[in-house]
């Protein structure tokens, strides 16, 4: 079954061809005109704009491909942001095709403007359609719809409302009925909480698949001290996420928010497992936030290993000790480097 986004994508790509062709035609017509023209400066200006538009159309095709990649990758069905993007791209393409054709015909018209017998230039195709769409009365016949109202010199005509206006209005009313019907009567469209539950269910399936990958299985029971390149990664994470409270060197400062992590005193325990637990779940009562939604298990293990590695580094201006003295039970075995595996 074809997905909506795929269909839109195909349309967007197919439209690139006429876009390219109309653009090329326009360019040729413009060049042709340039060769014949006496007033070259004006046309040069026109060409500048034209080239800009051509460039723009290329941008659009680039965008189309940009939007296409994730759209194709998206596994979910239905209307999402890529649908909107694709629709936008298609609208822009159609607009440009129309514009290019119109400009091309303008160039031709400049060469041989068809003049009717009265000597008046004929109306363009566009304005003819526009007049029809709105069922415009010719200006000369305006008198027949004059209401005779005159307010401080303002007269009022009584032209009919444009037919597309009425149709459009009825269409939006129909939309409203269908919308309310689907959400609240037939209940065939999900309300916000159902929508959320569906989203979470999808994410849980993905989570389960992910957790089966080896490196991320690490938790507070299985965490081990990691090697130097992992510690280097941990240092980077620490600098980004932890430094505001603990300073980049981990020693915090007098009056600082977090405790000193370089001394032998620990509020929530100083073993690797305890540090990992503190990072993972946080200690909300003590002001330490939980990181499990922002760091992966592997990243938390790296950060915990970094914290272990700075013990005794004694940075200048570090905070005074807090909590209880922690004595290392046994020397922790160092696990093999996982950074490369992890990538």
């Amino acid at each position, binding site marked *: 079954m074809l997905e909506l986004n795929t269909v839109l994508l195909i349309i967007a790509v197919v439209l690139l061809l006429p876009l390219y062709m109309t653009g090329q035609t326009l360019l040729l017509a413009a060049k042709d005109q340039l060769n014949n023209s006496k007033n070259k400066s004006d046309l040069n200006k026109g060409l500048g704009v034209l080239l800009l538009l051509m460039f723009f159309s290329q941008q659009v095709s680039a965008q189309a491909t940009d939007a296409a990649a994730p759209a194709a990758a998206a596994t979910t069905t239905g*209307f*999402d*942001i890529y649908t*909107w993007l694709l629709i936008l791209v298609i609208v822009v393409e159609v607009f440009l095709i129309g514009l290019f054709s119109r400009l091309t015909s303008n160039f031709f018209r400049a060469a041989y403007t068809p003049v009717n017998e009265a000597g008046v230039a004929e109306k363009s195709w566009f304005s003819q359609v526009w007049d029809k769409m709105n069922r*415009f009365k010719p*200006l000369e016949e*305006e008198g027949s719809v*004059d209401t005779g109202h005159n*307010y*401080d*010199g*303002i*007269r*009022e*005509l*009584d*032209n*009919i*409302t*444009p037919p597309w*206006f009425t149709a*459009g*209005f009825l269409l*939006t*009313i129909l*939309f*409203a009925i269908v*919308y*309310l019907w689907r*959400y*609240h009567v037939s209940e065939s469209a999900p*309300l*916000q*909480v159902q*929508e*959320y539950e569906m*989203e*979470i269910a999808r*994410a849980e399936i*993905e*989570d389960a698949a*992910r957790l089966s990958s080896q490196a*991320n299985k690490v938790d507070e029971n299985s965490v081990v001290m990691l090697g130097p390149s992992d510690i280097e990664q941990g240092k980077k994470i620490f600098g980004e*996420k932890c430094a*505001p*409270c603990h300073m980049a060197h981990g020693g915090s400062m007098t*009056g*600082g*928010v977090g405790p000193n992590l370089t001394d032998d005193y620990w509020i929530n325990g100083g073993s690797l497992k305890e540090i990992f637990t503190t990072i993972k779940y946080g200690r*909300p*009562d003590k*002001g*330490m*936030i939980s990181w499990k*939604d*922002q760091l*992966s298990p*592997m*990243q938390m293990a790296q950060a915990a290993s970094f914290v272990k590695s700075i013990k005794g580094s004694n940075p200048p201006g570090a905070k*005074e000790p807090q909590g209880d003295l922690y004595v290392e039970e046994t020397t922790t075995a160092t696990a093999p480097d996982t950074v490369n595996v992890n990538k």
Partner: protein
Amino acid sequence: MGLEKFYYDNKIPKLFAIACIFWGVVGMLLGVIAAFQLAFPVFNFSEYFPHLAFGRLRPVHTNAVIFAFVGNGIFTAVYYSLPRLLKTPMWNNTLSKIHFWGWQFIIVCAAVTLLMGFTTGKEYAELEWPIDLLITLIWVVFGVNMFGTILTRRERHLYVAIWFFIASWVTVAMLHIVNSMEIPVSFMKSYSMYAGVQDALVQWWYGHNAVAFFLTTPYLGLMYYFLPKAAGRPVYSYRLSIVHFWSLIFLYIWAGPHHLLYTALPDWAQSLGTVFSIMLILPSWGGMLNGLFTLRGAWDKVREDPVLKFFVVAVTAYGMSTFEGPMMSLKNVNAISHYSDWTVAHVHIGALGWNGFLTFGMMYWLIPRLFSTKLHSVKLASTHFWIGTLGIILYAIPMYWSAFRSYFMMKAFTPEGQLQYQFIDVVQTVVPFYIIRAIGGTIYLAGVIIMVYNLIKTAKAGTFLAKEEAEAAPLVKEYRAPANSFWHSIIERKPLLLLTLSLVVVGIGGLVELIPTFLVKENIPTISSVKPYTPLELQGRDIYIREGCYNCHSQMIRPFRYEVKRYGEYSKAGEFVYDHPFQWGSKRTGPDLARIGGKYGDSWHFNHMLDPTSMAPGSIMPPYPSLFEKDIDKGSTNSKIHAMRKLGVPYPEGYEAIANDDLDKQARGIADGLKENKIEIMADKEIIAIIAYLQRLGKDIKLEGQKK
């Protein structure tokens, strides 16, 4: 029957025009400053003047532009066009003067009190109760004067511009009164009568329709007078006027809930907001079509005349934003646009394009006529037009861009299933866009300055025409409509009928949405663990409101995976039952705070308020050192608790007397805790109260979870 001679007064329109331009410059200047504050926090100057921080300045900007700039623009148009359309002078010149000076007095009061931190905390309705009363009074003066004029008219039928003026007047009165229901705690402090979800619904019913009936319908009236005048063309379609007038005012009022999609507002109300917004597209476009089609046969003039150029862009901007608005009311689009810069871009297309350009066009047409001369420089007016257009483009595009970028960043997950970006990463990404936006705003303002110069030169070159003579026959008592006249002309002959029908038509939507939300209990399921704020938290909450934190921080987590991961469990309706007023916010320049309680320690908040960048490098939040110096206003605790109980918050009888003891105890606890972290602060400082409030947010429902 003899013709009667009378005079149109030009003094009042002139005064309103001057006020409009003056406040316009002030309001836009404040907007530019606020824009630079978001790009460069140093412009908050909050270390020296807490009054100028973004949270207090932004409401002054919005109120100045809406009620001072556009408000005076409306009154200029009404006081100039109404007498001419009705062939009679304004009914009572004293009332006109009271209206003018009263409105300017309100504006000055508003600016001063908002900067001082007196605010109700409800967007576009921030003014405190004494000013609300004053507004009501002056609005009535305006209404009496307008109806006095209408009832003493020499023109039998009311022109479409006047329909819009009447409907706007009556609807604004209704919105203002219902939304301003508040219980005074003291002079310049009150609590909203409504709480939480109900307060949110009333507020956005008001907020959306302030846009509709203050920024849109009166300006449609303005357009219907000045556009055909300037173009010298008849209005395109009388029946289109009728169709779009009635459908517009009927449908508009329903659309308020589209500001609350994916919030804790009941689903049915959200859906009504969506579908009525969609149905609004064509009725809104009716005004644009009637405006643009009126220019048929005058497009050659548009190329030359700056007045018409401004009108064309204004009407086009109106068409664009009235299409964009309904699109943003679709749930899946709103998921992107809500809380983002998209909304900001959208309102500025309306404000800069529609209101701004329509006002400028009117001024370029009106001032030369008031001074019986020609415009000083058509060329400068054209320059203004191009500069203004450029300003709008430079304003809007970066905001759209920023909205999309931040949306993609906010919802990005790493392959490990973690959020890819922290909030601060998003902030840093959008700051460059804020810089371009600020430049766009500056350019737009520069155009306005050019206009001021041009108009002053024009006025100086001419002589002011204080009175204009006119003559017309009085209305005869016995009138028989021609046999073939259209039924609607009956309404046009009976202004009070028109007034009543308008009120009925706008009343329906409000009643259908508000009454069930207030009466049907299922709409707001109660949560037993949700308890009233402690006295200290309540004081902290009032500081939060005073500093305008809601201008950048929401307290409403939407049910999306990426929001729940970032901020915690999505917000439930029952959590807000003691929130008078609600503080859901409408824009996330900073992160959501609905569940900030317990996320960080007290010392984190302490340091963060003193210097936000110390805890969140790259933050654009201004520092709040004044909170560390000012004492908690304990003298108000008694009356605050009393007012809250009157509103139904279950504080025990007589709790007022001992509330401050509880307050002191909780404050000491926080101060002692900070002391353990080597932070010395007295327990009676405001920072303690705001920490207490922030640490409470969103916690009640976690307790619920633990019980299970």
